[in-house]
């Protein structure tokens, strides 16, 4: 069996476990595709070819010996370069962190992916210290959009979006503090899962905002998201926010019908500040799901403001010593935002965290009467690289700060979201499928249904 670039992880794992393809062939195909296209996409900062080949050979040896292999056997994957990869300094998109000693041990999620048979092929470009929505990086250059390489991948998990959107790997891992999984998913036309806050361990990943940081997978199908997500669940004493809930597998539930689900469209804030393509995408998804009810989420704009305040201040606290000692080694745009964050008075931050609890209660009330909320993932399709402003609802606004305007009020209270790609022409755009806490299964089930209906799909990369 030969490989083809857009094979899903499920197809690869099935072919490898069934002896139709070797793990080494799957790995070599990914490495070849990276070599062929990453000069343009710039999604990888490190390719771990030797490690990947050794792992693939070990899987093939297990299969030859008749041993049982995991559900991700032979599936190549890559990680945003804020995950610890043994032997590499965890650069987190920065220049400064390159001086760190190489990581001694992989991040928990890499260990879990590899325990399930996946094969790590490298680390991915990202916005500096994850304080970014564009995918641009002053040190490594921008990761590029696989559908139009003059456009942004989205960030901060830009390389993750670019690599999966460009079909270099079927699965990538990234992080999402305010939208950094959902934004690149939208711009690059792929599926992304931001799980419930605390669901997946962040152990041995470089932090940004401890009270808002999430990790999660990107893929080219909802089933692949579920496959990776299920492999990564589980408690971890090394992440104090990680839940002690037991495993809640989602893949076995993904084909269940959705007729029992109450699906509504998020109103108010989520219907403002959108370009026509976002309206079109929400319209298509809502129509396919038969969703007509519009639910207003009270104070969502204020929630976005509170998320901004917590982010800028916690981020400043994290980087305070680096800002003192090595200010000229930061991207100036990131540095100046962090310095400003250090100057926000403490009571404002406390009030933002108190508001967060109030807002959480509002969402809990809404989820008593609905199971799913639909909202735009981004206000627009991918802007041009370097684009500074866009015109939103008649107001000229900075692109960088406003791309996440619809994602921030959701991650603010840790709700699970699947970003599904709607393959509009000329560029795809994402829609957020939002569920109640710990109900990733519902969001994935809806995403899978949309995919089966042909409403959501990861388009073949158009820019390569």
């Amino acid at each position, binding site marked *: 069996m030969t490989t083809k670039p857009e094979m899903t992880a499920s197809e690869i794992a099935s072919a490898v476990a069934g002896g139709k393809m070797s793990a080494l062939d799957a790995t070599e195909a990914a490495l070849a595709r990276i070599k062929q296209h990453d000069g343009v996409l710039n999604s990888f900062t490190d390719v771990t070819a030797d490690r990947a080949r050794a792992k693939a050979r070990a899987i093939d040896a297990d299969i030859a010996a008749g041993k049982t292999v995991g559900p991700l056997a032979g599936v190549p994957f890559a990680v945003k370069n804020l995950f610890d990869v043994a032997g590499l300094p965890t650069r987190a998109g920065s220049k400064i962190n390159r001086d760190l000693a190489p990581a001694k041990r992989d991040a928990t999620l890499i260990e879990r992916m590899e325990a399930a048979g996946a094969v790590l092929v490298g680390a991915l470009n990202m916005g500096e210290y994850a304080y970014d929505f564009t995918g641009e990086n002053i040190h490594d250059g921008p990761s590029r959009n696989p559908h139009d390489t003059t456009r942004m991948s989205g960030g901060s998990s830009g390389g993750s979006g670019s690599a999966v959107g460009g079909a270099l790997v079927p699965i990538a891992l990234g992080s999402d503090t305010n939208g950094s999984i959902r934004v690149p998913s939208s711009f690059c036309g792929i599926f992304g899962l931001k799980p419930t806050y605390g669901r997946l361990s962040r152990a041995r990943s470089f932090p940004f905002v401890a009270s808002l940081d999430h990790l999660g997978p990107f893929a080219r199908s909802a089933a692949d998201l579920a496959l990776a997500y299920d492999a990564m669940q589980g408690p971890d004493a090394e992440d104090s926010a990680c839940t002690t809930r037991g495993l809640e597998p989602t893949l076995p539930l993904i084909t269940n019908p959705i007729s029992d689900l109450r699906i509504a469209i998020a109103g108010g804030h989520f219907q403002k500040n959108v370009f026509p393509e976002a309206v079109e995408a929400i319209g298509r998804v809502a129509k396919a799901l038969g969703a007509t009810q519009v639910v207003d989420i009270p104070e969502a704009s204020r929630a976005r403001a509170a998320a901004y*305040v917590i982010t800028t201040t916690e981020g400043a606290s994290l980087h305070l010593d680096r800002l003192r000692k090595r200010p000229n080694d930061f991207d100036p745009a990131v540095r100046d935002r962090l310095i400003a964050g250090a100057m926000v008075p403490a009571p*404002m931050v406390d009030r933002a965290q108190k508001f967060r609890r109030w807002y959480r209660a509002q969402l809990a009330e809404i989820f008593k009467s609905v199971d799913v909320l639909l909202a735009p993932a981004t206000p627009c399709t991918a802007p041009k690289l370097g684009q500074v402003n866009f015109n939103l609802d008649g107001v000229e606004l900075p692109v960088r700060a406003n791309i996440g305007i619809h994602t921030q009020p959701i991650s603010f209270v840790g709700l699970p979201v699947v970003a599904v790609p709607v393959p509009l022409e000329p560029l795809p755009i994402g829609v957020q499928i939002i569920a109640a806490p710990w109900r990733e299964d519902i969001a994935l089930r809806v995403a899978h249904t949309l995919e089966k209906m042909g409403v959501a799909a990861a388009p073949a990369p158009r820019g390569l």
Partner: protein
Amino acid sequence: MAEPLDDYIDAVSKALALPVEEAWRPSVRANLDVSLRLARLVDEFALPDETEPAPIFTA
């Protein structure tokens, strides 16, 4: 002419021993202006005295 936030930036920069070079000042000021505007939006929202912040420490 001094901008309204400049005295505050100078004072906090000194208190935190956090350098702000003159060339960065306009950008720091602009970012601080946005941060404070958004913080005020949160501040304006009345909450009961008993409201707990979202992260709760467990001993």
